[in-house]
């Protein structure tokens, strides 16, 4: 059957996330962006919503079951508040969720409780590389097996909270396949840039370059053990996180510009009463809906282990990146000159909007 009703639990969760997004994240977003810092309390409060904790079974210290559908609902709602804040709150998932999906029993036992039992702690992952043709399935960072150890070589970019991280999940190319490796931050040969990445947006987030110079990783730390992991569902989950965050940010821009258009007068009427503006808004709303439904379907397929779940997630992600650019650009356009001023959030959302095409690896559902 087809159905578009979230469960009662999901609705309650979405409402709780919405409150946090609107009352906390949104309020703090501009200062965080300008001051290059997210208040620690803000992130802990988001962590206490328990999104990751609720996706991990009791056996590993959590209190629920992972659902990509629930994930996309929650991420969209949180990103409606602020993208940087959302990525910060969810950073530990980058480490934990792939372990949950692809780790060995020992790896789950060892790491999952550590990540989720206490306060928010910077467990992170390193996927992105600094290259125009970066491809998660064709990494330049390599892993080579030598004497029952893996040697990691290469450089990672945009690594969230790397400086304070306890552990990193590093993705590397092993015989042509992307594999994950659990690496402590103080591993010999691993160095982290002094300065943070300087990007067009997400300035509130500390992101770093991570160099790997013959970093030795014990065989037991390869995600999934000796036989390794299937990267496809992990990548699909990352793409869906980016896609649902894109819908959230786009929706924020849509709502804001819609409300502005209903207030702002020109030529004796509200500008929303002009078809030129009204039609833009209608198209924004339509494309947001299109993306959202594609995300939901892909997430549902992922939860059902459908054969084409990964392709669906790829299509949802690719579409959402375009949609977010279109919608956030139009939000700025609707505000006109005011949209260009940093007093309004739309310019920030437009900078976010361009990023989704390259944000695979910064979040996971």
């Amino acid at each position, binding site marked *: *059957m*087809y*159905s*578009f*009703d*979230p*469960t009662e639990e*999901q609705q309650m969760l979405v409402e709780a996330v919405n409150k946090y997004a609107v009352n906390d994240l949104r309020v703090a977003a501009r200062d965080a962006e300008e001051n290059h810092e997210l208040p620690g309390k803000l992130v802990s409060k988001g962590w206490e919503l328990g999104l990751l904790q609720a996706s991990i079974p009791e056996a590993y210290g959590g209190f629920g079951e992972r659902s990509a*559908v629930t994930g996309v609902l929650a991420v969209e709602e949180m990103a409606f508040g602020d993208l940087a804040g959302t990525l910060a709150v969810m950073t530990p998932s980058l480490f934990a969720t792939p372990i949950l999906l692809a780790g060995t029993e020992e790896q789950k036992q060892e790491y999952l409780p550590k990540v989720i039992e206490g306060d928010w702690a910077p467990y992170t992952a390193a996927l992105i590389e600094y290259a*125009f*043709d*970066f*491809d*998660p*399935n064709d990494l330049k960072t390599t892993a080579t097996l030598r004497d029952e150890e893996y040697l990691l070589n290469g450089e990672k970019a945009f690594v969230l909270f790397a400086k304070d991280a306890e552990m990193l999940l590093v993705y590397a190319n092993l015989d042509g396949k992307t594999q994950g490796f659990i690496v402590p931050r103080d591993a010999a040969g691993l160095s982290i840039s002094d300065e943070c990445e300087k990007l067009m947006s997400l300035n509130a987030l500390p992101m770093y370059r991570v160099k790997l110079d013959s970093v030795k990783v014990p065989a037991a730390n390869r995600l999934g053990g000796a036989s390794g992991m299937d990267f496809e569902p992990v990548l699909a989950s990352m793409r869906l996180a980016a896609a649902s965050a894109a819908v959230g940010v786009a929706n924020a821009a849509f709502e804001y510009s*819609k409300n502005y*258009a*209903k207030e702002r007068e020109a030529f004796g009427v509200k500008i*929303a*009463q002009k*078809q030129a503006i*009204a*039609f833009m*808004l*209608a*198209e924004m*709303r*339509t*494309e947001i*809906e*299109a*993306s959202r*439904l*594609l995300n*939901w*379907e892909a997430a*549902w*397929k992922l939860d059902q282990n459908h054969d084409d779940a*990964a*392709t*669906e997630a*790829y*299509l*949802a992600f*690719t*579409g959402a990146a*375009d949609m977010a650019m279109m919608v956030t650009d139009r939000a700025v356009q609707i505000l006109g000159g005011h949209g260009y001023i940093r007093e309004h959030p739309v310019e920030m959302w437009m900078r976010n909007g361009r990023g989704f*095409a390259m944000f695979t690896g910064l979040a996971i559902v």
Partner: protein
Amino acid sequence: MPIEFETPKPIAQTQFVLKTVAEEMMRSKSRYFDEHEHEIPWDYIEFMHTAMKAMGVGSLAPKEKGNGHDGDEKKEKRPPIAYQVLASQIEALAWGDVGFYLVTPGGGLGAAAVQAAGTPEQRAKFLARFAEEKPTFAAMCMTEAGAGSDTASIRTRAILDEKTNEWVLNGEKIFVTGGDKSFTEYEKLGKGFIVVWASIDPSAGRAGMRAFVIEAGTPGVRVTKLEHKLGIRVSDTASISLVDARVPFDHILGSPTVEKTTTGFKGAMATFDATRPLVAASGLGVARAALEFLKEKLTEHGVQVRYGLPRQKLTNIEREVIDMEIMLKSAWLMVIKAVWMADNRKPNALESSMSKVKAGDVGTKITQKVVEILGPLGYSREFLAEKWFRDAKITDIYEGTGQINRLVVARQILDYSGKDLR
């Protein structure tokens, strides 16, 4: 029920049959009827009527069963899916040929109006005929030369003759899809009807608008013209004139008196909330036909689409194909959501119009892009791509143009009336 995207069994089970029908009965004749406009595809009509009767489907119009209208209790409590089934069937038939789909016997938009705005007695009286011996059609007459999307400026008048208790209608209707087959009495067809929109009180504006069921052959009503069109040529598009056409009193859909509200008009618009996603579905059927054809040709020529690669690594053709798939899939989900809402009696004016906006865009863009990418193969009448390009264009025009639907969407999201946003 939680969020779910499993194709319902009744839909999945008929997909194969519909595909066969589309290929054998429609595609094989697509070109002939495109080039012989105004000929009637009797084989198709008779085949479909027989097949639908055998399947116990009297009409493609949403039936009372499972729709909750007549309060008939189902044995099991399954969620209603009548509109979902219908949207899927229409998509599948339009994949075969969107013009042929319009020539599928059954109630079409005329029956949909009776279904949406009629009393139980009217539904019983007018809808039973579609399950009878001969294939039967019904059509909706709304548009006039001076009133397209602006349906409130309809000039056709209906005046009650109190002596005979009949309505007397005068006016000129154009662009009546299937008007000829619904009204003209062909030997091979059952007696159909047309649903004519007219004003019973022009001073009341929209509040005075009503629909009237007019039986085929009614004196004073005449098919005056069959249009020559860009596409969907197998489907007749009629002009119908009404000169002192007399209609029994109980053929009015909705209240015969005018209050100064717009409920009568809103009744008409509610019909469109139900039917817009269905027309959207037909646009997506053509679009899927075109996209699948393109992919076949690409495969024949050894061009692979590498899903999963970042955009920067894709060729232009790969990007185009992937973008078209995104459009098509998401537009289909919007249709399904809109009809799912209709099935579950959730107000769907916004979703219904959004699905039409999106499908109108997607149908035209994909068919245009496919012709472009196929180059001379796309432009040649040897293949059907160029025909689908012409056919698909109508789906962004009828049942509300893309622009009028944007207006409806905008009013919904802005919480504006027609006065606030003209």
